[in-house]
């Protein structure tokens, strides 16, 4: 019997026994629902992290030279922390040495930051996240200007007291006013606002619209880094391969400047969005595996229910099997009929489960800050699992049906 006929037959069988079919499907439905739900949420978290870390915090195709890592997974031990504290600071001279050897197509920027007090004629406090950064920071981090302009290389070089401010800073310190050309003071020092950034939102609770950027050689640097060192140098390459290459160049330069012997560990950190994300990837894997327990239980229960229902169906339809055999159905025709029926049942359950799972993901997205992201692979996996569960659960009943003796089967009921 062709597959199409077998599926049509299976569907008509389902129509006849709607309620029974529904109960049969619950296990698979719940299993698939949680599968889709869990995967969607974890994927959503993944996208959130990726956009946050890769896009907004670090930038694309970049890495940062720092004294110690900024993004860490898990707990940092006391010993590690002590080692980090003993490390030499990154100094201006280091930056110049590194910049001198980087390939010409790579961009770099010094970025120092700290929370500082600010005040204007209209408001004072709360603190803003002040960056004393090179002019190239705007290009590297894709910080787009909503109004006014960014400061220039020239202004940065001479440490001019100009500042580019975030949306929230603009709204708070200059309520209802155009902040361009107005004065914002940091620790009493007046800065002229030259630009306002596009709205950026929040990443991991960090309000990106409460940032301000001023030239790294302006007096603001004395607030962020009183010791005269540098928090970090961001390097950006046009390609991922360029990032690798630049990282090696910076590593060699820094090692020779710190006079590290071969075999001795780096006493600085090179942090890329990739390395920061690898920590997340580890967490994500654990979440997915843990999240699979519930769906797995659902599917096992679903398989057992389907097997029982199919055994009942074979018993109830013994006469039908006898008739089909008398009319020329071979063993494999009967086997296939019941396998297709079990698989169709199960795939239908999976489809309903997918719909419920997508609903669940959206519901969670609605009540939490996590975006939901239904992964195509999880939908395909769900359908494949549905069919697989049906086939596995159907094998035993279908083989029993196929082995019935036609003479005995025709005498049934």
């Amino acid at each position: 019997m062709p597959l199409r006929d077998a599926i049509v037959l299976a569907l008509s069988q389902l129509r006849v026994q709607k309620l029974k079919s529904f109960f049969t499907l619950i296990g698979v439905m719940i299993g698939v629902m949680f599968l889709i739900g869990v995967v969607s949420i974890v994927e959503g978290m993944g996208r959130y992290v990726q956009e946050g870390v890769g896009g907004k915090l670090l930038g694309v195709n970049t890495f940062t030279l720092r004294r110690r890592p900024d993004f860490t997974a898990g707990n940092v031990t006391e010993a590690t922390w002590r080692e980090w504290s003993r490390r030499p600071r990154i100094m201006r001279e280091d930056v110049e040495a590194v910049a001198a050897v980087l390939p010409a197509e790579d961009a770099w920027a010094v970025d120092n930051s700290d929370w500082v007090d600010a005040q204007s004629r209209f408001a004072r406090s709360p603190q803003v996240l002040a960056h004393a950064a090179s002019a190239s920071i705007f290009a590297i981090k894709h910080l787009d200007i909503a109004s006014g302009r960014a400061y220039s290389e020239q202004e940065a070089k001479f440490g001019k007291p100009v500042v580019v401010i975030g949306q929230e800073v603009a709204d708070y310190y200059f309520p209802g006013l155009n902040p361009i050309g107005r004065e914002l003071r940091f620790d009493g020092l007046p800065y002229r606002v030259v630009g306002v950034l596009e709205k950026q939102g929040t990443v991991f609770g960090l309000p990106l619209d409460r940032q301000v950027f001023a030239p790294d050689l302006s007096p603001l640097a004395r607030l962020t880094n009183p010791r005269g060192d540098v928090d970090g140098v961001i390097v950006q390459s046009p390609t991922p391969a360029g990032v690798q290459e630049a990282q090696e160049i910076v590593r060699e330069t820094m090692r020779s400047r710190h006079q590290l012997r071969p075999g001795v560990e780096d006493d600085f950190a090179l942090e890329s969005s990739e390395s920061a994300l690898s920590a997340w990837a580890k967490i994500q894997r654990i979440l997915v595996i843990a999240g699979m327990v519930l769906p797995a239980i659902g599917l096992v229960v679903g398989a057992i229910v389907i097997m029982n229902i199919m055994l009942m169906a074979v018993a109830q339809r013994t006469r039908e099997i006898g008739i089909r055999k008398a009319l020329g159905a071979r063993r494999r025709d009967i086997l296939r009929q019941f396998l297709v029926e079990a698989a169709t049942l199960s795939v239908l359950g999976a489809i309903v489960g997918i719909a419920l799972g997508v609903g669940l993901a959206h519901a969670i997205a609605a009540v939490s800050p996590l975006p939901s992201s239904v992964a195509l692979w999880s939908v395909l996996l769900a359908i494949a699992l549905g069919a697989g569960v049906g086939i596995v659960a159907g094998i035993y009943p279908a083989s029993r049906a196929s082995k019935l003796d036609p003479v005995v089967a025709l005498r049934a009921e």
Partner: protein
Amino acid sequence: MSYQRMDAALSSTDERHAVISSAGVTPGKDWVIVTRGLRRDYDMGGEVVHALRGVDLAVRRNEYVAIMGPSGSGKSTLMNLIGCLDTPTAGEYWLNGSLVSSMSDDELARVRNREIGFVFQTFNLLPRASALHNVELPLVYAGVAAAERRRRAADALARVQLGDRMEHRPNELSGGQRQRVAIARALVNDPAILLADEPTGNLDSQTSDEIMRIFEQLADQGQTVIMVTHEADIAAHARRVVVLRDGRISSDERREQFAARVTT
């Protein structure tokens, strides 16, 4: 109707004896059924029951044969063997030139599909399928494409005057109509034999006559018909009557001889 024509279709005792006695030899083309020493034993919890104790039967193409016998005579067993639903313990069974007594399950399924049209006492239609779908079923297993299947099933239903009941389900049809659907289903694959098992057992006498007339017509049109029954008056519709007793053929004669013997 001329007895002359019917007689031409009937095999003679000598011809049958000749084809049966040459064991192992493939019968000639016009012999649809030849059994040689067909035996069937059942193991009933350690006790062996001999349902058939050596049945020699030969049926030529176009014959209309009734197999009669009281219950326990082995006629159901013989019908299962002739219908390829069961395999013999010993002996040969040649159907339409093939030795089916040594075939595998799947080969038997194919033979049932191509060579045999069943008509059962209890109709054995699929209750939830339309008349048309029921008639299509053998074609489904023969691998016929859907459109062709539909056309042939509709033709077969028209042959039994049910062209206007194609979409009805069995429970929407009378007993006689159901049996006609079953006959259409039996004929749809153009089988070598139409094998009927007590075809009128569940029908009133008027409907029985109607079904018997259909069998008569089919036989006239050249269809080989084997009918198993325990009723003498039904058996008398066939042109040749084989009587089974205790697992053996006790008589094999023309209808007229049988009728004369039974009525006196």
